[in-house]
């Protein structure tokens, strides 16, 4: 089995650097420069995987990123394992391990292979048709389907590698470093355009660097010799950056492209550590030059998928570039001259070319004559009707093709071979072009889709624009460069090209066999096992749109996105339905061109960088004092401060009692703060809040409720008048950015006549809130010279003061119903302020409390939290807050909506209090509330929005929204839970200190 198929030394393979690697547990050797595919082929390994549906043995088909079959699991069982990697793209390194996918127990003996023999029972749409009934069985079906489907295995431990993102900008981006790309990049850079040239491979030059055909000459040299000199010269060009192993994944509008730069995948494990593995380049380019080349088409014939059947161009690359013979008895099957170039390349290296099967009736080119002269048998007007060999091709059967190409005649000839090169012509790689939004047209003569209508500053050059011959490429490239770069001269003006290639081609999308189609397996999509038969079945069953046929048959839906077979699928549909290819259109090519790793997509946004967060200036103190934190928007807020192993419940009960009985302190720095200035500031507030602001005296505070234009509560908070034309507004923690955005929107677009300026100062101030009957005593200790009497500093007022030399703003406002002060200082003094309060409060046993206690305390008072007790469907009237809605004001945001028929409905959900029958039972927030349990379906009246055990009332309390709740005071309702019904009574949402006496306590 292992025999060495190296045929000659290649300058791209370092034969002094022998590398050992494992495939399916067995050790093989290759050389530095090999891909996994070339190294396996050199070891005569063709069978590398099993197909998705029928588990048919499959081999290496191509030499590039379009590979559908040879997809493997890299380094299985390690934390660097990666599934679905194309063996044709993996550069081998010492210690590399790879294994086949989609086979069990092994690729040589795969139990799933039974599907191949059952294949008559697996037509297109098999799953849709079979697993529909009975509906309740789907869960059982799914279990088995999920287990038998799927390709590789995803890693189970975390990724050890580093990934990166980078934004880069260029005048010109050239995608693809074949002959066209190299010449384009060189000329752009030489003309002072800042240029980037990228290629997915590790070497520049594309297929031309191994183009040694003696009949093609550039300036009297072979294309390969000539291009190598050009590549050499690139090094000395300024303004030109070259990135190899860089695959453009996506081409978005406005010339925004994403590319994956592969930095360490080709290195040994020891050299990978602490390096960036892959980098996602976010490229903006003024002009994009697409030189993405063309992909060779296979031919669609019976059993065209056996290991050993490859693209003709791939065989040539393995021989010329890697120095590997793909077989020892090779047959070519072709519809154009490309296969003869491959055959000649093999012949020149002494590899046995058995014969060439050509569906054309002749070709007059020199290269064909050369093959004839070499004594290689050519079967004109013949087609392959079948192939044999289960795990490796061993023969092909050919027959004479009828003139119209739809049937075969005569007797069958069997040709023994171990490798078959198929050449079905070339398909321009227009994937990126169409991703950019640009449109294709179908060229009936060449039978290819070509770039037609550009939507961005872009050009397509070389074979991706349909130029396949070197003389055409250079001539057209020259003109396009001059036009797009607006230059007069290029390097290409004086190039002399000689070529010999015939254009003649006989395109037949589906080649006939001597057996009826139903008895054959002509694969169109190799990876997904979609055959021509499946496509025809889909058409018979009424599918017409190419997008529908694709989904029904899964053609083009594998990890390779059908790079090889999509054209044939279209061709077969067009032929069968009797329409023109151009009218059929194409399926959408979606990014990425080749699969990306998740690591590349997320870059450095992992772990603690997954989501950004904000911390208050007092954060260190909270951490030192063992606070538990909760996320509020982007903020990390102290949630509660457990001591001596308290549970959350115990801590919150203690904190809540302390705040009401002595004094508590809360870090309120996260509240949004917007500084509002300008001569129309009062008028502005009048328009954005529901209540009136004009008469608010300087030095006073007022609570405001902000609505959306639809009348629903949007935000709330206290705003303080600092001066005649100066206010400071506080918003909810989570709503700050949106409120500022909304206010700016109105100012800029609806009321530009208002003289108002908004500045976010959320991060500029730190806020400590002292709450409880002893709060005044602490403040007195900190600021002895401030008159804290109720006459001088009443509830809802503001003072400027100094703590030592530090200026502070103090608001006497309360979110708990207790006598409270909010002290604001410049953010950098926040921790000092906090520590000073703690020190001064020692004698009163000052108790720091977190957001949970704050929530409990305000719930005792029936104060809402926007976003907890409201959900964007609650008006102030629903919240029983009619008192804050001005009747006198002519207009404010949302006013008109409060009089819509829908917002005036009596049976809207309204905010109420709930008391449980058993005062020790605490309701779950979100529980449904019902009245009548016996009806079916049970009508859901509303739900619990806030629920706590109140230590100050020594009973369970809850806020809830209930349909028509306003008029249900005292009514018994039920909260049905999984195992029981909880009886509740509708109550006033203000549970504690209804007369607000404690504010001045």
């Amino acid at each position, binding site marked *: 089995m292992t025999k060495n198929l190296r045929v000659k030394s290649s300058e791209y393979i370092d034969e002094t650097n022998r590398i050992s690697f494992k495939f399916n547990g067995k050790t093989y050797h290759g050389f530095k420069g090999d891909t996994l595919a070339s190294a396996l082929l050199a070891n005569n390994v063709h069978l590398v995987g099993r197909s998705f549906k029928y588990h048919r043995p499959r081999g290496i088909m191509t030499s590039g990123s379009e590979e559908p079959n040879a997809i493997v699991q890299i380094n299985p069982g390690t934390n660097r394992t990666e599934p679905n990697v194309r063996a044709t793209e993996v550069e081998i390194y010492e210690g590399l391990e790879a294994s086949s996918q989609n086979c069990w127990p092994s690729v040589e003996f795969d139990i799933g292979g039974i599907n191949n023999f059952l294949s008559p029972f697996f037509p297109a749409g098999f799953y849709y048709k079979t697993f529909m009934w009975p509906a309740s069985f789907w869960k059982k079906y799914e279990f088995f389907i999920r287990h038998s489907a799927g390709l590789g295995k995803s890693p189970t431990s975390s990724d050890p590698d580093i990934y990166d993102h980078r934004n880069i900008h260029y005048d010109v981006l050239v995608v693809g470093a074949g002959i066209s790309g190299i010449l384009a990049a060189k000329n752009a850079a030489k003309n002072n355009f800042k240029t980037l040239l990228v290629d997915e491979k590790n070497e520049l030059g594309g297929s031309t660097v191994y183009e040694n055909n003696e009949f093609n000459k550039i300036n009297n040299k072979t294309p390969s010799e000539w291009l190598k000199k050009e590549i050499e010269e690139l090094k000395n060009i300024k303004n030109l950056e070259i990135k190899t192993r860089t695959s453009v994944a996506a081409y978005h509008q406005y010339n925004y492209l994403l590319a994956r730069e592969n930095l360490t995948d080709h290195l040994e494990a020891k050299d990978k550590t602490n390096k960036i593995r892959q980098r996602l380049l976010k490229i903006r380019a003024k002009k994009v030059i697409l030189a993405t080349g063309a992909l060779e088409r296979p031919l669609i014939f019976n059993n065209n998928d056996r290991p050993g059947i490859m693209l003709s161009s791939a065989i040539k690359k393995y021989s010329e570039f890697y120095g590997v013979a793909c077989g020892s008895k090779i047959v070519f099957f072709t519809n154009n001259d490309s296969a003869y170039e491959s055959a000649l390349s093999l012949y020149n290296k002494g590899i046995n070319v058995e014969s060439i099967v050509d569906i054309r009736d002749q070709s007059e080119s020199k290269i064909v004559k050369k093959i004839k002269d070499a004594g290689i048998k050519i079967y004109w007007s013949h087609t392959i009707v079948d192939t044999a060999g289960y795990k490796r091709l061993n023969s092909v059967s050919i027959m004479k093709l009828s003139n119209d190409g739809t049937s075969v005649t005569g007797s069958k000839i069997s040709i023994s071979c171990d490798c078959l090169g198929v050449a079905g012509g070339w398909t321009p790689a227009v994937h990126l072009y169409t991703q950019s939004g640009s449109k294709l047209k179908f060229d009936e003569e060449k039978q290819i889709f070509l770039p037609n209508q550009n939507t961005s500053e872009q050009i397509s050059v070389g074979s991706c624009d349909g130029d396949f011959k070197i003389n055409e490429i250079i001539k057209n490239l020259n003109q396009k460069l001059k036009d797009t770069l607006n230059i007069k001269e290029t390097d290409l003006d004086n190039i002399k090209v000689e070529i010999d290639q015939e254009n003649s081609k006989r395109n037949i999308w589906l080649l006939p066999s001597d057996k009826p189609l139903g008895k054959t397996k002509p694969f169109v999509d190799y990876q997904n096992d979609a055959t021509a038969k499946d496509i025809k079945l889909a058409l018979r069953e009424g599918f017409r749109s190419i997008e529908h046929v694709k989904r029904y048959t899964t053609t083009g839906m594998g990890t390779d996105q059908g790079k090889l077979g999509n054209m044939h699928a279209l061709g077969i549909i067009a032929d069968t339905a009797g329409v023109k290819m151009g009218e059929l259109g194409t399926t959408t090519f979606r990014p990425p061109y080749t699969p990306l790793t998740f690591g590349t997509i997320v870059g450095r946004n992992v772990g603690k960088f997954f989501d950004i967060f904000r911390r208050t200036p007092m954060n260190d103190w909270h951490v030192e004092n063992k606070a538990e934190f909760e996320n509020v928007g982007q903020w990390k807020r102290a949630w509660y401060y457990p001591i001596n192993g308290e549970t959350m419940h115990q801590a919150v009960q203690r904190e809540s009692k302390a705040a009401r009985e002595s004094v508590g302190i809360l870090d309120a720095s996260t509240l949004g703060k917007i500084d509002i200035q300008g001569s129309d500031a009062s008028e502005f507030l009048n328009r954005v809040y529901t209540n009136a602001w004009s008469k608010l005296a300087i030095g006073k505070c007022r609570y405001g409720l902000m609505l959306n234009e639809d009348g629903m509560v949007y935000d709330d908070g206290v705003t303080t008048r600092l001066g005649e034309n100066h206010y400071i507004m506080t918003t909810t923690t989570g709503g700050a950015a949106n409120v500022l955005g909304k206010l700016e929107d109105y100012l800029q677009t609806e009321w530009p006549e208002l003289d108002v300026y908004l500045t976010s100062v959320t991060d500029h101030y730190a806020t400590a809130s002292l709450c409880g009957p002893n709060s005044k005593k602490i403040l007195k200790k900190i600021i002895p010279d401030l008159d804290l009497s109720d006459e001088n500093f009443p509830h809802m007022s503001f003072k400027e003061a100094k703590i030592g030399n530090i200026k502070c703003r103090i608001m006497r406002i309360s979110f708990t119903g207790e006598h409270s002060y909010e002290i604001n200082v410049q953010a950098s003094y926040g921790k000092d302020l906090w520590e000073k309060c703690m020190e001064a409060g020692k004698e009163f046993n000052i108790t720091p409390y977190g957001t949970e206690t704050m929530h409990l305390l305000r719930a005792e008072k029936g104060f809402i939290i926007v976003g907890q007790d409201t959900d964007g469907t609650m008006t102030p009237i629903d919240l029983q807050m009619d008192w804050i809605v001005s009747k006198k004001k002519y207009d404010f945001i949302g006013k*008109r909506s409060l009089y819509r028929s829908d917002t005036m409905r009596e049976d809207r959900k309204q905010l109420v209090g709930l008391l449980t029958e058993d005062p020790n039972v605490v309701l779950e927030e979100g529980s449904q509330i019902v009245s009548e349990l016996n009806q079916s379906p049970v009508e859901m009246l509303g739900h619990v929005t806030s629920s706590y055990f109140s230590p100050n009332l020594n009973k369970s309390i809850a806020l809830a929204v209930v349909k028509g709740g306003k008029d249900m005071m005292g009514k018994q309702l039920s909260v049905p839970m999984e195992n029981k019904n909880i009886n509740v009574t509708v109550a006033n949402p203000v549970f504690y200190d209804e007369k607000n006496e404690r504010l001045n306590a």
Partner: protein
Amino acid sequence: MFLINCPYCGERDQQEFKAGGEAHIQRPRQPTELSDDEWAEYLFMRKNIKGVQFERWNHAHGCRKWFNMIRDTSNDEIKAIYKMGEKPPAQ
């Protein structure tokens, strides 16, 4: 990903911007005079067409300024950008 020419800052990547819906819908000056239907027309009804559309955009992560954009939604071509309060340029 658009490249948007903010009238105050110049060309910037789309991720700095926020789309703000249809442009040139003025908030009624006297909402209380409107019938429910008329108010609903202002409040809820927005066009979403395939073709040339007038839109509001905000340079949210930049100068915070709002401006107008004329965009062809079928191919995302930005036909014009102009400041708030300005008349749309002739097409």
